[in-house]
């Protein structure tokens, strides 16, 4: 078996070893907010976030699709000068990237984005960063907090999208299961940290997975959700929630599967050079579908509120066969108006 064992004590050593070879991104606190950020040593990593089951406020999408990102650079007269390849190398200082401590739902979230950005026309800006990244996931054995409903969205047991999965099999030991060549390479490259797996470890792993199975509960049935949402196009439900919503967009920014963006041109003060920047946008904002001549294709707040659900629960399932939601509950946690996506869906299905 390719899996190996790593002791909990050795995790800091692993991080330190990785920082020599990679740009390492791991959970930390930034002014009391749990977050993913670049670390230079294991002392900066908050293992507490990982093992006391908190989700960083911003999901790992912030690595591939940050709030602001340069797409390419140009000269105003001569045109494009730096393509996105050069720019993504500059962002990572010519290194490969490791994101450490990604929860299974976030692995699924990255998977959703990857498919969307790879399919049809592949978005080089996103994929360049994505493809040089190794994802080390830390498994969840139970709902991490009250807003989590990953089991309902079947995202707590991703089959792909991660390179190594670490699962706690006892207080002191984790099993490291590689899931790609990049993952195997990690286990191979740091032999002093990974030991062979024993029979007892295997059993403990199976026990852990069984425990996981038992602990996770489904809150409602997602089957047929797309038709339900579509059928409720004219329903009063949208109005009810629209009346509470601030349209601040917070839910869309913290969501691991929301990816709308807009672009801006930034020009230097001497007016010689410029760059195109991508910036997070949100379908909740009034100008999202506004075009020249003041025509707005989504004029009312209700239309905007509804569109997010249409996109997540109708368009994406039809197009790709997955929902645009992994049940991480961030949008619930960070909504100043306390709107709960589960309530919206339950009302639509008719179970609330």
């Amino acid at each position, binding site marked *: 078996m390719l899996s190996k064992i790593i002791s909990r004590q050795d995790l800091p050593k692993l991080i330190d070893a990785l920082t020599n070879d990679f740009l390492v991104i791991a959970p930390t606190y*930034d*002014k*009391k*907010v749990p*977050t993913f950020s670049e670390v230079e040593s294991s002392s900066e990593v908050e293992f507490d976030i990982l093992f006391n089951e908190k989700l960083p*406020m*911003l999901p790992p999408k*912030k690595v591939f699709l940050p*709030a*602001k990102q340069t797409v390419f650079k140009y000269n*105003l007269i001569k045109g494009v000068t730096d393509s996105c390849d050069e720019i993504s190398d500059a962002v990572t200082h010519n290194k490969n990237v490791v994101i450490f401590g990604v929860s299974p739902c976030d692995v699924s979230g990255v998977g959703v984005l990857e498919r969307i950005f790879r399919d049809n026309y592949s978005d080089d800006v996103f994929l360049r960063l994505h493809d040089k990244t190794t994802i080390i996931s830390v498994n969840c054995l139970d709902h991490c907090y009250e807003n989590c409903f990953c089991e309902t969205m079947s995202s707590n047991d991703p089959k792909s999208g991660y390179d190594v999965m670490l699962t706690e099999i006892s207080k002191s030991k984790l099993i490291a299961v590689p899931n790609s060549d990049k993952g195997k390479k990690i286990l191979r490259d740091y032999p002093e940290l990974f030991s062979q797996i024993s029979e007892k470890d295997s059993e403990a792993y199976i026990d852990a997975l069984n425990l996981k199975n038992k602990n996770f509960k489904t809150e409602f049935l997602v089957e047929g959700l797309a038709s339900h949402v579509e059928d409720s196009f004219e329903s009063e439900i949208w109005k009810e929630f629209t*009346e*509470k*919503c*601030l*349209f*601040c*967009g*917070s839910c869309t*920014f*913290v969501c691991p599967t929301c990816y709308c963006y807009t672009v*801006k041109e930034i*020009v230097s*003060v*001497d*007016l010689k050079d410029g760059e195109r920047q991508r910036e*997070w*946008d*949100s379908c909740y*904002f*009034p*100008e999202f579908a506004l075009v020249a001549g003041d025509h707005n294709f989504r004029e009312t*707040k209700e239309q905007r509120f509804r569109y997010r659900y249409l996109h997540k629960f109708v368009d994406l399932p039809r197009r790709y066969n997955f929902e645009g939601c992994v049940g991480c509950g961030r949008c619930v946690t*960070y*909504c*100043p*108006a306390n709107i709960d996506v589960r309530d919206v869906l339950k009302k639509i299905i008719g179970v609330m």
Partner: protein
Amino acid sequence: MASKPQIGIVGFTGCAGCQLSILDLENELLDLLGLVDIIDFRMAMSGNKKGPYDILFVEGSIVNKHQEEELKELREKAKVLVAIGSCASFGGPQAIRNYRDNKKTKIAQYGKDNIDKVEVIKVKPINKVVKVDHYLLECPVNKYEFLDFVKYYLVGGTPTLPNYPVCQQCKAKGNRCIFLEDGIMCMGPVIQAGCDALCPSYGMPCDGCRGSTLEAAYDQQVQLMIEKGASVEDITRYILKYNGEDKQVHEFLMEKWKEQDKKLVYQED
């Protein structure tokens, strides 16, 4: 290249912070001077010319008849007129007094004898006097927005200012939401971004100096503030800081909130 655009920066009643902010563009100032001719900037130089201007930036609110006339004259000489800062755009903090009974304030402030010594008219943002082509926001004006405006003007077009709430930039920076988590009365959800969520980034509530977003959800915001324990007077104060003459603030206060806060009286002209 054709001759450089002629720029004027003038101030009416305010704290002069917007003009000072422009002087705070130390790193860019010399480059900027290569692009435009500043012909009128009383705060920074003598020998000013009163137009004609390609772009005239106007700071401050209008508080007397004399200023109204002067502003109208300036408008005639300006191809493009841009309001900078909260005072010019929304009346600024002094517009708070537009929502108080003028006569009573006057008597209380000067005593009956002094009442005629100083002329007091309603505080007006400049768009109540002349046509305004663009607004650059913040208190004081965001100097980078000012710079962007000049750059875009020169390259062609106008910059699109963010019309989304401060929460966008708060989330982008990974800030803790002080409204949700600490119950601090942050106006971020209804206020236009562009300041890079300055106040919340320091753990301080957004005071709303950039004015309302398009379609700001005041009803919902106020509802949440009440749930968090704010009183009627509190809410009036939170809303009425730098923004008295913002259209949506005015509408909300006078059409909805007046029923709650009976002390709100709007001074008609």
